[in-house]
């Protein structure tokens, strides 16, 4: 029998980058929410997380526009509502909604800061602006925050819905794909938090988050490893999945799996965080390798088996 070459994928490097990067703003929002609920310095982090999420969301929007063969018609993704069964249609609208909500949240935080700075006479506000009066009102702000969290959670999962509808990403059709997109989004967010906490000067007031972010990274890495294990255990019996497993373990993507995901993405950061629990350099290194590993998992879910 002649086995013919497979056709080129309709989606290339830009869309792969999109599916990797889109996890970051979702993870950042969820991690910022968790830190803000448990630590006073979390409110400071929330400000940076909001700005970074806003920048990344604009970047992924730009990626999509550049990738389109007809960028002048990008607006149709946002203005057409006649096919809401399309995950991309829902995702594009979610990104637009989240960007708008982030703008409102950032406006509120910056206003808090200005008011707090005016009250204290200081140019550095280490509370992130929390606690002051806001024009949004006490009732509206939790609503915006809640919608932001909901949109972030949805955007963390949505790549699984998109890719599960394609023939080119069979791994995304597995039972654990959505969980892996969520865990990698959280890891990307926690890794960004780790880098911010490790790199920010002391006067920014983020140093108090070193231990919480370290703990969060360790817990998320453990959960991620378990999710990967059960994903692997669940991939048996389907010829396409068997081929994908072979590709990952001994085939063309084996280096990305063993080196990128297992060694760099899980083992290395866990070892560094456990060996040097108080070191900010170790936290930064662990955050970098965690982000690399999480990004690699998302890329493999997109690329393997097509």
């Amino acid at each position, binding site marked *: 029998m002649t086995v*013919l070459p497979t056709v080129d994928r309709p989606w290339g490097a830009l869309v792969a980058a999109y599916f990797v990067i889109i996890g970051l703003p979702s993870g950042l929002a969820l991690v910022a929410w968790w830190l803000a609920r448990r630590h006073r310095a979390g409110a400071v982090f929330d400000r940076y997380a909001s700005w970074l999420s806003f920048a990344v969301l604009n970047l992924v929007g730009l990626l999509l526009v550049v990738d*389109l*063969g007809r960028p002048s018609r990008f607006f149709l993704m946002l203005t057409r509502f006649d*096919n809401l069964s399309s995950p*991309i249609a829902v995702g594009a609208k979610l990104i637009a909604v989240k960007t708008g909500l982030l703008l409102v949240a950032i406006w509120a935080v910056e206003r808090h800061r200005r008011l707090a700075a005016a009250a204290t006479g200081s140019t550095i506000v280490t509370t992130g602006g929390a606690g002051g009066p806001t024009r949004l009102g006490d009732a509206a702000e939790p609503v915006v925050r809640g919608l932001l969290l909901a949109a972030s959670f949805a955007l963390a999962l949505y790549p699984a819905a998109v890719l599960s509808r394609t023939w*080119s990403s069979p791994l995304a059709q597995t039972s654990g794909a959505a969980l892996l997109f969520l865990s990698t989004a959280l890891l990307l967010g926690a890794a960004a938090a780790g880098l911010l906490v490790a790199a920010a000067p002391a006067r920014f007031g983020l140093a108090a988050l070193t231990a919480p972010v370290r703990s969060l990274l360790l817990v998320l890495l453990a959960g991620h490893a378990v999710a990967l294990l059960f994903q692997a255990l669940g991939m048996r019996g389907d010829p396409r999945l068997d081929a994908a497993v072979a590709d990952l373990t001994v085939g063309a993507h084996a280096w990305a799996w063993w080196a990128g995901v297992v060694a760099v993405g899980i083992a290395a950061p866990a070892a560094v965080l456990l060996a040097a629990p108080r070191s900010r350099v170790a936290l930064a290194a662990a955050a970098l390798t965690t982000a690399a590993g999480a990004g690699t998992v998302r890329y493999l879910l997109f690329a393997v088996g097509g």
Partner: protein
Amino acid sequence: MTRLGMLIDLNTCIGCHACSVACKAEFDVPLGAFRDTVHYVEDGTYPQVTRHFIPVLCNQCTDAPCLNACPTGAITRLDDGPVVIEEGDCNLNRFCMSACPYDAIYIDDDKGAAQKCTFCAHRTANGQEPACVTACPTGCRVFGDLDDPDSAIARKAAANPTTVWKPEAGTSPNVLYIDPRNALPLIAVNGVQVDTGADLAGQ
């Protein structure tokens, strides 16, 4: 309710590509792309070898993945069944191409839109048959209303065992095949395939 479909008898296809050429001419399909083509699949081990000719086109699925995937609503279904693309609403996001298990959609750079077989909707609206059906020298393609028990396609489908390409995709194709040698699964190996070896070097 009319449900247009096509029945392809693999017993009588001779792989002449008259269908492909007629389709290319009808729609000015660009070089390297096809709305309708013929896969050549070799089977067996020497000296017990054979070659199958398998015409493939958009399956005009009842549960069309492309239609469900399109985020701009550019892909719609005509009243009599065929799935078509409204060029003006297509922004080339290519989700339809990723969702289609049959590689039946391509990008036409000149038109700035994704394109696919429409069962020659402009011809069938005037009572004509699709160009590929008219061009086929062996009459291996039968076109008509699958829901009309008196139509030629319905009668032939009732008289012969039929199958579809990639039934596991769950798309309920409206292109049926008479495939006594079970050749269709051979082009399903490793997903969607195209025979790039058919291109000559230009010497």
